[in-house]
């Protein structure tokens, strides 16, 4: 567990994705089975162990340390597991295999748990104690998605990410058959019902690029502003996956209940009330919930708008041309009014399509999708057969208010910018952007920040409000958590308006008027 503890610590302090991937891959390459599999599951949240309560841990501690010293320590450290890891008094530092810790936490009965945990802590040095306690409290907070874990695995051997994704949902920790496959052994059989299948993604396009193609070879449909999902009913096993393969069934029991078909379909998850598709913000309220209350199910009903059929009636349609799959889709009976089919658009020329895109019939459309009629359904992002032609972004002119130093390649540069809009004679912060500019512009912005600093708070500087940034963004949600009452989606700096005085920046009311 020493290597696991080191990995946890490095991951916790490493902001860059590629550096995280390397740390994880090195760990997985150097660690034997079954420990590396348990570690992987712990990091991605797939390790189901008995959860140890804070009360139990606190109880162990006050038997050993003066209560007042414990309280002072906890107050200083701010995290219970970490406080206990630091306070626990032992001279031993055995390298206990991770699977022993996992066995202890999955097999020990409730009555024996306090003594078993104390016994384990007695054997461990401080960093392993912290790793063990994080495992026990089920509170890793590492920020490592299952998708990133699969990328690290794909870097270790021959199977690529799509191949690993295809079998992932049939596997359970400690994933021995998966590691054997990566090492050159046989591909594990897909044992699970309703597995995730890699999603076909599109590449961005614009009108100039489209002119090189014959519109007759393509169909087009709206790009709905929801969440791309894969919905499956495989012999009664029902699942809803995000496009990265996360199982999100638990958050959408209403839609799961409506999957009265036999197949796997690709579509857009939306909140829809009758014919009205709700704004993305409404869908967001349904995300990430382990349990959904009755009221939420009634006020924010989930629905599915189907784009494509992958498996239908026991047949895998993915190798067929899109026109054949589309014919099957239009003939399909989904048996629920929560599920409908994404309609095709009527166009003869790219200019027809441009006109449609410029004036969509609903605010929850973020552009058009353009798909070759003869395209097979291929997982990943093949270049060409499918295009997304997104609606032009919204822009506002905002004033730079704060800047924060970046990490990694941006070390030493002020690269995270908070900007604000006018409300009466005050500037109200409305968002944060950290991309959209070139390296040369970053150097200019950094120089501006250093020359116009008013105040410093740790790594953050407050800036004299005089530089206008044109901020582009994809959408807006009303937000109770933001002071301004709105939250932008994908904000980025599209232009630096060195020419424009701050007094001419936009007002908050202009932004609020854009909320759909």
């Amino acid at each position, binding site marked *: 567990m020493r290597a696991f503890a080191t990995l946890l610590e490095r991951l916790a*302090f490493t902001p860059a994705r590629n550096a995280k991937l390397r740390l994880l891959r090195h760990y997985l390459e150097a660690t034997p089975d079954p420990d590396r599999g348990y570690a992987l599951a712990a990091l991605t949240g797939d390790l189901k162990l008995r959860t140890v309560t804070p009360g139990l841990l606190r109880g162990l501690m006050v038997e050993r340390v003066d209560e007042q010293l414990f309280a*002072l320590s906890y107050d200083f450290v701010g995290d219970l597991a970490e406080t206990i890891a630091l306070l626990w008094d032992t001279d031993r530092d055995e390298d206990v295999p991770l699977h022993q810790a996992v066995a202890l936490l999955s097999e020990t009965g409730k009555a024996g748990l306090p003594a078993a945990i104390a016994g384990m802590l007695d054997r461990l040095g401080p960093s392993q104690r912290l790793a063990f306690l994080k495992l026990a409290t089920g509170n890793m907070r590492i920020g490592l998605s299952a998708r990133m874990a699969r990328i690290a695995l794909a870097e270790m051997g021959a199977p690529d990410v799509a191949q690993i994704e295809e079998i992932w949902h049939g596997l359970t920790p400690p994933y021995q058959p998966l590691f054997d496959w990566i090492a050159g052994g046989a591909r594990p059989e897909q044992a699970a019902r309703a597995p995730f299948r890699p999603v076909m993604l599109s590449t961005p396009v614009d009108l100039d690029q489209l002119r090189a193609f014959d519109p007759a070879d393509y169909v087009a449909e709206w790009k709905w502003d929801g969440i791309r999902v894969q919905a499956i009913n495989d012999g009664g096993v029902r699942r809803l996956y995000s496009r990265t393969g996360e199982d999100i069934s638990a958050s959408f029991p209403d839609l799961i209940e409506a999957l009265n078909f036999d197949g796997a379909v690709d579509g857009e998850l939306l909140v829809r009330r009758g014919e009205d598709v709700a704004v993305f913000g409404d869908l967001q309220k349904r995300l990430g919930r382990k349990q959904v209350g009755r009221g939420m199910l009634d006020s924010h009903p989930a629905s599915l708008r189907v784009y494509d059929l992958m498996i239908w009636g026991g047949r895998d349609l993915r190798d067929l041309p899109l026109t054949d799959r589309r014919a099957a889709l239009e003939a399909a009976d989904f048996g629920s009014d929560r599920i409908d089919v994404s309609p095709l658009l009527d166009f003869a020329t790219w200019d027809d399509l441009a006109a449609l895109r410029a004036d969509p019939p609903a605010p929850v459309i973020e552009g058009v999708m353009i798909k070759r009629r003869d395209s097979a359904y291929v997982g990943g992002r093949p270049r060409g057969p499918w295009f997304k032609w997104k609606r032009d972004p919204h822009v506002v002119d905002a004033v730079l208010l704060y800047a924060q130093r970046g990490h*990694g390649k941006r*070390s030493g540069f002020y690269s995270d910018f908070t900007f604000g809009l006018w409300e009466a004679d005050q500037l109200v912060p409305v968002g944060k952007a950290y991309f959209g500019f070139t390296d040369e512009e970053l150097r200019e912005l950094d120089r501006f920040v250093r020359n116009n600093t008013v105040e410093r708070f740790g790594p953050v500087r407050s800036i004299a409000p005089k530089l206008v940034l044109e901020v582009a963004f994809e959408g807006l949600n009303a937000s109770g958590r933001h002071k301004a009452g709105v939250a932008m989606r994908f904000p980025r700096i599209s232009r630096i308006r060195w020419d424009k005085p701050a007094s001419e920046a936009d007002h908050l009311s202009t932004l609020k008027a854009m909320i759909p």
Partner: protein
Amino acid sequence: MFTILVSMRADQILHPTPAGLYCPPGDFFIDPVRPVPRALITHGHGDHARSGHGAVMATRQTLEIMAIRYGADFAGQRQAADGPVRVGGTTVSFHPAGHILGSAQIAVQPDHGPKIVVSGDYCRHPNPVSEPYEPVPCDIFVTEATFGLPVFKHPDPAGEMTRLLASMAEFPERQHLIGAYALGKAQRLIMLARQAGIDGPIAIHGALQRLCDYHVEQGIDLGPLVPATAKQVDAQLVIAPPSAFASAWVQRFRDPVIGFASGWMAVRARARQRGVELPLVISDHVDWPQVTRTITELAPREVWITHGTEDGLLRWCELQGIPARPLRLVGYEDEPE
């Protein structure tokens, strides 16, 4: 005829004032934070050793360090401490504190009254850049409590260097920039790197140059050092004062791993506040086991606590039945930069 000897109370010998700890019978201050006529200084860190005093007594090395930092005329008079010296109605002596080069504890023995040892900042881990701490028996022990909570058990610095080396091997294409206080910590870090097997050039920020040169003059072989001031810095390990990370100096490095060597790095929230990628728990201060062990060994009648997280240490003294009181001195940093 006979004289009535009146023994002085401890707080008549030494007591806190806004300028720092003052000793009336000797008419001197210890580590004053404002200019005073006569100062005794424990060590060269900026918050203890300030310029502008009338007369300064300190170890030879501390005086030399102050001259490097403030110029040769940093005080009206300078006197190197060497053995017991009479100062007013007291006898004072300086004893190694194990904190940084030249660091000392100051023992104050009045003619009639309790002996007080002001430890300054001290450390009992082996430290290649400092003489080891010397226990000085006393009636009143004045201790720091920078790390005065039982969560602070500084790990073996060699283990922290193993972590640094592992990261340098894992990310060979990235330079490792480690923040370390310019006096003491930086040189200790360089020595630890040498002991860990880093023989090649280590790059140092310009602010470290003169203090590193001085350590070499004092017989501490820091090995090959190159300046980290050039456009291209040709060393994987770079050491700089933490304040340098906020300056444009960092921009010459492409995708560096930024670390920080400090006792505070033991607490994750502290490390996160700093925005470091590689926290190294290396401290020049006593940790909890050391400070409690020192008090137990010295068995003073009373413990005074100068600065730090004194509540934890006060509670411990209470549990041990040792009278203790906080001096609540202001002007000293936790573990300064």
